């Protein structure tokens, strides 16, 4: 069985690589199914992320969410080993870079970052000190978060920004 395992491993990893990369030159699987499999897996990733990070998906609306996720997948062809929760955080980071992360998504990502960190595509609980902030747009709030060592729940403060505070930024 050891030899069989090696043969199966070679075939399956080549197939997955071809599907993720949508590699039309690959002969590992029947080529007419390559695009179909690629699209289906992409959609599956999008759905899994929307379940893991529902507020972001709801705020954007599912059609917009899928459209932006497709754009994200072009830069990240392989799903992370850590699963949909990790991928949702990576997607949120990309949305933030594009200036498209909704306020609810910002709060959710702050909460995640205070509790977890992502290393090698996997999430790990934070043990040390962590401080983070987010600026919300509507209404304008500064959200500050602090995670203390040996304390599981982070502390969070919301500060309403006045016009004066905003113009002094």
């Amino acid at each position, binding site marked *: 069985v050891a030899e069989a395992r090696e043969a199966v491993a070679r075939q399956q990893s080549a197939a997955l690589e071809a599907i993720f990369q949508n590699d039309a030159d690959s002969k590992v*699987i*029947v080529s007419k199914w390559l695009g179909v499999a690629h699209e289906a897996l992409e959609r599956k990733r999008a759905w899994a992320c929307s379940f893991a990070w529902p507020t972001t998906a709801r705020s954007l609306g599912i059609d917009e969410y899928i459209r932006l996720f497709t754009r994200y997948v072009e830069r990240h062809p392989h799903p992370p080993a850590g699963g949909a929760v990790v991928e949702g955080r990576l997607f949120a980071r990309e949305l933030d870079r594009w200036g498209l992360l909704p306020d609810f998504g910002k709060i959710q990502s702050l909460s995640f970052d205070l509790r977890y960190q992502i290393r090698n595509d996997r999430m790990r609980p934070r043990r040390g000190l962590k401080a983070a902030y987010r600026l919300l747009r509507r209404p304008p709030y500064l959200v500050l978060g602090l995670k203390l060592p040996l304390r599981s729940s982070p502390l969070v403060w919301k500060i309403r920004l006045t016009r004066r505070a905003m113009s002094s930024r």
Partner: protein
Amino acid sequence: MNTFVAQEGTSTTPRPLVGILWREHSATYIEQVSDVTCVEVMFEDLADLDQIPPSLQRLRDRGVEVLVHGATLSLGGAERPDRRRLERMARVADMVDAPLVSEHVAFVRASELDSWHVLPVQRTQDTLEVFLENLAEARGVVGRPFAVENVAQLFDWPDHEMDHATFLREVLVQGDAQLLLDVENLRIDEVNLATDATQVLDALPLERLAYVHMAGGAEKDGVAFDTHSRPIPAETYQLLEELAARVAVPRVTIERDVELSGAEELQGELDGINAAVDRGVARRAEVSRG
């Protein structure tokens, strides 16, 4: 606890246990439908392994059977099954006292790549040997009867050594496993790969049938997808009837990943399932009467 008793050749129609894949977002509706006699729970879905979700417990209290299903063991993959996942499945099965557990004849990951989706295996002797060893290991850890499920062929491999039914039969017989037959996946294979679902039914060891999955998927550009997002189509009810015309169907569960519109929708699908089984049973009784 409800039990299925096949009543061959009698005028009484044997009814399978019927229900749906239990999900947090559908839990309220499921509880409202008194015809639900069986539910499935994904072992990956339960976050708390010390407590059964209250809604699921209420269903158990009224005698609803709970089966445990998995989609991440990757038994068709080259790697040995992950021990932590198997122990988690065993723990959930113990919690709900599941009469059996189930997984797909599929692979999910290979090397460092994880697809998060059950993908068809190449049907070769090598894959069969690997699958059987993985299945034996999984059963050893979980300690419950195992059923294996056919997946929709999302893509096709070149150079298969066996056809779909032969490979599945070998898994079932050599692996001494029970069959979880996904009837919707048979329909999808008919659309995408021009297979004949009734021929597949005829080639399978249906005496090993433990339960049936029903679902409705999306179609795009003539390609069917196993999305569990739509109502069950008429063709899938028809295939369930074909199955019930061949063998007693012990249980049927619906898979729905998208929120149901309400209890009425679930009730309607359960009625459709019972009607399809009734038609199949009537045909079987007619044949047995000669």
